[in-house]
């Protein structure tokens, strides 16, 4: 925030001349990088397929409509499996995420030097691998089916839930904890009275948010054989049964919309 004296008037500018110059150069550099990237991508694209895209898309659209409505009788079970994978996976993940979060939060960890890094490692490693890849691994280990899907969703969600939860724990009002400590409460009582009530809204929000995400993730798990509606989707795609594919997509859409509605309602009720 430079103030220039010009005569006896004091002039204020947001940035000094040097700062504005640097910023202008930064923008120029960004534009140049964008242009270069555009050229490289363009050179490696087969433009014939791209120009052809609207025609092909139109073709698939005509094949896929109208959806094969009578196929819906075979989708009840798979969509129920999908919901179960998401719900059970979320529940298992939450049970495991709570202790991990308490071990990872700076103000509750028993040892910032040894235990906290382990907890953070668990969070990072489970978060960084997609649930589809977890499912592939787990199918190889425990065989295909719904159970592999549940475990894949659970593992993938631990890191996400634990990370958000430990951030909530670190942001609590410390004086409330002090007040409970000052009454002579034990360590566990301090946790139950001083910390838990403060993070409960965050916990509920995280739980429904993750459940909502997991419904979407579990719809594709069947693609690799881990149960749910994705199994039907991949089977239909393989035999080019487009009217079935469109019906499955509609069912998934409806399920996701309902889950969004539920999670919005639940969040509204708590916060």
């Amino acid at each position, binding site marked *: 925030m430079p103030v220039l004296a010009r005569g006896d008037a004091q002039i204020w500018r947001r940035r000094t001349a040097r700062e504005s110059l640097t910023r202008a150069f930064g923008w120029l550099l960004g534009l140049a990088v964008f242009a270069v990237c555009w050229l490289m991508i363009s050179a490696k694209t087969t433009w014939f397929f791209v120009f052809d895209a609207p025609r092909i898309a139109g073709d698939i659209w005509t094949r896929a409509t109208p959806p094969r409505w009578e196929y819906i009788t075979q989708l009840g079970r798979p969509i129920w499996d999908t919901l179960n994978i998401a719900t059970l996976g979320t529940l298992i993940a939450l049970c495991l995420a709570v202790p991990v979060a308490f071990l990872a939060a700076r103000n509750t960890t028993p040892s910032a030097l040894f235990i906290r890094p382990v907890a953070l490692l668990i969070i990072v490693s489970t978060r960084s691998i997609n649930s589809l890849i977890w499912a592939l691994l787990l199918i190889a280990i425990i065989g295909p089916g719904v159970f592999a899907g549940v475990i894949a969703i659970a593992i993938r969600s631990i890191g996400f839930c634990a990370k958000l939860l430990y951030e909530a724990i670190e942001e609590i*009002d410390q*004086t*409330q904890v*002090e*007040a*409970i*400590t*000052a*009454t*002579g*409460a*034990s360590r*566990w*009582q301090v946790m*139950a*009275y*001083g910390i838990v*009530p*403060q993070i*409960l*809204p965050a916990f509920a929000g995280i739980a429904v948010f993750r459940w909502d995400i997991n419904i979407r993730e579990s719809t594709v798990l069947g693609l690799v054989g881990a149960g749910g509606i994705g199994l039907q989707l991949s089977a239909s795609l393989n035999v080019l049964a487009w009217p079935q594919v469109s019906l499955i997509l509609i069912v998934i859409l409806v399920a996701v919309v309902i889950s969004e509605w539920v999670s919005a309602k639940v969040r509204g009720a708590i916060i």
Partner: protein
Amino acid sequence: MLRLQKLTKTYKTGDQALKAIDLDVPKGQVLALIGPSGAGKSTMIRCINRLVEPTSGAVLLEDVDLTGLGSGALRKARREMGMIFQEYALVERLTVMENVLSGRLGYVGFWRSFLRRYPQPDVDEAFRLLDRVGLLHMADKRADELSGGQRQRVGICRALIQNPKLLLVDEPTASLDPKTSRQIMRLITELCQERGLAAIINIHDVALAQMFVPRVVGLRFGEIVYDGLPTGLTPDKLTEIYGEEDWEATIEKVEEEQEEIEAAE
């Protein structure tokens, strides 16, 4: 009853918050601790119940040195000392009743407290205290629905249900309006008298301290520079505690107010 011997606190940064404090608080005495911000008032109170670990020196509560206690014994000792906070420090999402009963946490086991199954005598006492501070009708409200003065009253109940021998009070009126401040100070001093409690009250407002307590201790840069009657706080003394300022207005105001109160009564 409470004796501080050469109590010293040096923070990791090297700041000496308390420099060998010696203080004696007899049974049933209410004293006000005044001093500028950063003089070590809060640190001193927190060193007594070891929310802050003192660096050296001794804190003797009825001849037991608190500084050497292990965690179990420290919890038992903390039950003897009720604490009241500046920003009330109620657990906002719990009800008034739960907040009051949390003062009994040192006496009940984990599962009883977790399931909110407090012994009936504790519940009776909680109702009695809420009635005493005029909040009986609020027992089922959540703490964050209350006004500042009401919250501080709940804080007082939480401290008293511990059945303490000593109250540690940290800036009880700093976030309250002048009228509520006086009501809260009056309530605290009355309750101390009723129960024969000793209390150390940290307070910014010199006039308020002079109105309600029989003994004032002035702290500056972690050292006691005044210890005596509230009437002994002359402009010179206040300058010694707080630094140069025109003190006549503060002191005169108190005298006028006291006359007003006497006239009103």
